[in-house]
């Protein structure tokens, strides 16, 4: 080659290297760059065919990235460590079928080779150019590789952020329930479960995800949320189902990455080949299972669920557990609030029925007590009524049952008695009519024990009817006791033709004490499960018979409270003390 030709060739190569520099720096598309670069080589060395093969260090093979002059076949060539060492020397080397490989490497890292045909035609200057070209393209490849790694790192970091943000989102929604910001109705919990399921699905790159909850009998799971296969929602799966049972009974996550399609351990009716399930737990145990199926790769091939997948889904399951626990607490709180409102309504009704003041009757010292105790309102009731010719009616009653229903029955009794008293009939007739009236409105199985006495201050006598109530006790000043037990059946349960009532008139004397009471007094129980009883009641009154009615009331109350001690108190304390002056 003449000097002139050499200079011309050198100028041409410098120009080509300049072109290479422009290609490398102007495009972000590595595949497009490969094509352009190969085109430059192709024209520079008059090769009939040029291809670029990239090295995959994981698989240890060279793969075609671009080619010119030959049909662009996707070929893979295994590279041994020995061959890799040779290629790292950067020297051109003969390769398959009379071709030459120009190694591409940077910082002792094999990146690939330029494969050229027609080895025998290349001269020294061609090799010099190819050597420079290889250095250029190696740097470009290395930069592309770095960029790709950076993009992958960025994607990975963003996905991690997405995982964290998703967890924060779910956590925020769950906690907003605990903070009382929103109420957790069944619709809201269902929406939250859907969100947990869909987000788990998305972050795990699974093909399916579902959340199932154990039923009340703990024998079936019911799928409450499923994505993307919505048809699974509502389906039941027996709890004994192999892999589900394992998760449920042990309370531990389970991954099944290697199982055949026929495996009976998989949770039918879900059809999958890879399974990851974690328990949804609360303080009371396992409430359900959150599971994902068939994790897929970018190319659609299935890949195993990893430990980090398990950690992620566990985080979601924990949030689901907290949400379900909160929902349960919220429901209980609502129910408690309803009950408290009912108790208050019942208490208000009851309090409105009791007389505001105790009447002062000539010749009698009268006091009364009603103390509501326990968690619910009882059905105790006492009252005083004005009758004809200066007589006074006094009554005590106990409605079976508790709460609002008992309070309403008491209100009906109150209205009935006040109405019947106006009709000026005999006591037995009045009680008979009351039974008939109440029977029509009383809830099934409920009744009222009732005692009514008509007190005559002029004759110092009492006429009474006892309709199934605790016998009031009349303690005479001579120390004797008479139980007021004449009457008939309690009210509100029996047909009119089945009942009849009798009355009794008793003469009263100064110092006599009449005590009307409900079973809350005599049935008061101590920690040995002994009841206070009538005998103790009689004894207390006799001991303090010399005191005023008010003082006797206090003594009876204190005696009952002392007797009960620390034992739980369920029933109301209601009694009326009438002392004859």
């Amino acid at each position, binding site marked *: 080659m003449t000097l002139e030709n050499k200079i011309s060739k050198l100028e041409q190569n410098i120009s080509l290297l300049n072109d290479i520099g422009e290609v490398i720096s102007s495009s972000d598309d590595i595949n497009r760059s490969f094509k352009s670069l190969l085109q430059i080589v192709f024209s520079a060395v008059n090769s009939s065919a040029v291809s670029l093969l990239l090295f995959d260090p994981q698989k240890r093979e060279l793969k075609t990235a671009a080619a010119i002059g030959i049909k662009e076949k996707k070929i893979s060539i295994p590279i041994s460590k020995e061959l890799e060492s040779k290629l790292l020397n950067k020297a051109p080397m003969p390769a398959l079928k009379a071709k030459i490989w120009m190694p591409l490497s940077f910082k002792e890292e094999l990146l690939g080779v330029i494969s050229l045909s027609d080895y025998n035609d290349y001269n020294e200057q061609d090799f010099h150019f190819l050597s420079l070209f290889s250095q250029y393209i190696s740097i470009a490849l290395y930069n592309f590789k770095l960029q790709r790694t950076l993009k992958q790192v960025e994607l990975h970091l963003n996905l991690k952020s997405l995982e964290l943000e998703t967890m924060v989102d779910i956590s925020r929604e769950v906690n907003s329930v605990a903070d009382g910001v929103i109420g957790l109705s069944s619709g809201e919990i269902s929406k939250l479960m859907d969100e947990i399921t869909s987000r788990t*699905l*998305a972050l795990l790159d699974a093909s399916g995800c579902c959340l199932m909850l154990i039923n009340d009998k703990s024998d079936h799971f019911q799928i409450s949320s499923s994505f993307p296969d919505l048809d699974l929602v509502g389906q039941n799966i027996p709890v004994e189902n192999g892999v589900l049972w394992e998760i449920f009974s042990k309370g531990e996550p389970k991954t099944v990455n290697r199982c055949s399609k026929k495996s009976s351990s998989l949770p039918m009716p879900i059809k999958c080949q890879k399974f990851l399930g974690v328990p949804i737990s609360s303080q009371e145990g396992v409430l359900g299972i959150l599971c994902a199926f068939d994790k897929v790769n*970018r190319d659609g091939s299935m890949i195993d669920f990893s430990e980090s997948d398990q950690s992620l889904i566990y985080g979601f399951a924990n949030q689901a557990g907290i949400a379900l626990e909160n929902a349960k607490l919220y429901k209980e709180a609502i129910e408690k609030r309803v009950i408290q409102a009912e108790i208050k309504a019942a208490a208000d009704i009851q309090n409105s029925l009791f007389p505001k003041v105790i009447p002062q009757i000539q010749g009698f010292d009268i006091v009364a007590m009603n103390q509501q105790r326990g968690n619910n309102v009882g059905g105790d009731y006492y009252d005083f009524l004005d009758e004809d010719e200066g007589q006074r009616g006094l009554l005590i009653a106990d409605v079976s049952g508790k709460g609002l229903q008992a309070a309403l029955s008491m209100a009906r009794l109150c209205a009935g008695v006040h109405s019947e008293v106006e009709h000026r009939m005999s006591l037995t007739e009045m009680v008979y009519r009351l039974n008939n009236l109440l029977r029509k409105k009383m809830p099934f199985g409920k009744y009222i024990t009732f005692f009514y006495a008509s007190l005559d201050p002029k004759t110092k006598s009492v006429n009474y009817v006892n309709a199934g109530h605790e016998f009031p006790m009349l303690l005479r000043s001579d120390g004797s006791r008479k139980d007021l037990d004449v009457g008939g059946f309690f009210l509100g349960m029996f047909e009119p033709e089945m009942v009849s009532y009798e009355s009794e008139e008793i003469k009263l004397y100064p110092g006599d004490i009449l005590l009307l009471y409900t079973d809350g007094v005599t049935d008061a129980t101590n920690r040995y499960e002994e009841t206070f009883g009538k005998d103790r009641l009689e004894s207390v009154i006799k001991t303090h018979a010399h005191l005023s009615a008010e003082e006797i009331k206090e003594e009876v109350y204190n005696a009952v409270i002392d007797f009960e001690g620390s034992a739980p108190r369920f029933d109301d304390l209601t009694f009326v003390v009438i002392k004859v002056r």
Partner: protein
Amino acid sequence: MTDKFNLTVKKEADFALLSTEGYINHLGEKIEAECSSLINVGYKKFVLNLEKSKVISSIGLAIFIEIIEKLQQVNGIIYFCCLAPVIQKSFKIMGLAQKVSIFETEAEATEAIRKV
């Protein structure tokens, strides 16, 4: 599991409207393939309607990133519309929302892209 994903393409005079239906996971490759084909025949403006897709996987998001980058290389643009709140949030966290315009309705997106 049965994968359900559909893609419909409507070619307008100066842009292409692509609408997805179902879970966008690896099957979202269909979107990238369709966009590449359209780019090769000269389309540079795209509207992607995700109204009927409520969930998108990590792979689906990566596919969208690649589509956006591919379009940037040919000075193309892509507008998204009708994104479910969860998908919109994912777009924001993954940096997609900073690279593309997102519209609430298809009408808004198509009107905007016609003006470009």
